């Protein structure tokens, strides 16, 4: 028990007041996470592919051999 007191901050009495902190997500980080997940959206990938298939088909379908 005696040893633990060695780790206290100098001037010991202040150790009971907690440091201010925030649990809110930083806006910059939230933006980063949103951009990142938007960039990896599987559904959008498949939608885009399906639309491109249709686009190519309507544009070039009649010329195929």
């Amino acid at each position: 028990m005696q040893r633990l007191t060695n780790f206290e901050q100098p001037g010991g009495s202040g150790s009971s007041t907690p440091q201010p902190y925030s649990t809110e997500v930083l806006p910059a980080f939230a933006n980063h996470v949103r951009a990142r997940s938007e960039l990896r959206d599987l559904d959008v990938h498949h939608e885009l592919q399906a639309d491109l298939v249709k686009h190519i088909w309507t544009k070039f379908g009649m010329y195929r051999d």
Partner: protein
Amino acid sequence: MSIYQGDKGTTTVILEAVASHDLWIWHAFFGCPGTLNDINVLDRSLVFDDVEQGKASRVNYFVNQRPYNMTYYLADGIYPSYPTFVKSIRLLQSEPDKLFAKYQEGCRKDIERAFGVLQARFKIIREPARLWDTADLGIIMRSCIILHNMIDEDERDTYATFDQF
């Protein structure tokens, strides 16, 4: 977007690059050992950093009357299914699928052509590397790509190009 790799079974260094139809190389990322797979290369690459930080320029366009706002690369099948990659279709089930695969693969050949021209222009990157230091190899590769683009800028008007889309 694609990768260039030496013969299988030898030690290789991967080059990831983005090229356009006129053979201009827009992005190149060099230096990962060939043992890394393409997804690992992509994770280390800087190609998406701008987009992830919300810096990349957005383009609004419609495909089949549906709005999209992100540009995409034509990639080969090993790349992940992200909205920024359009890959060919592996299991062809219908006629439209087959036609799409044909066009996608036809356009994606641009990167292979760009690598082909790059290698044809510079003997030093056509042959097995003479140096051991990856940083030195990276400088050589980067210099060749810059020279390639300079030649390209000078000559691209003489290339036969087709604007069909």
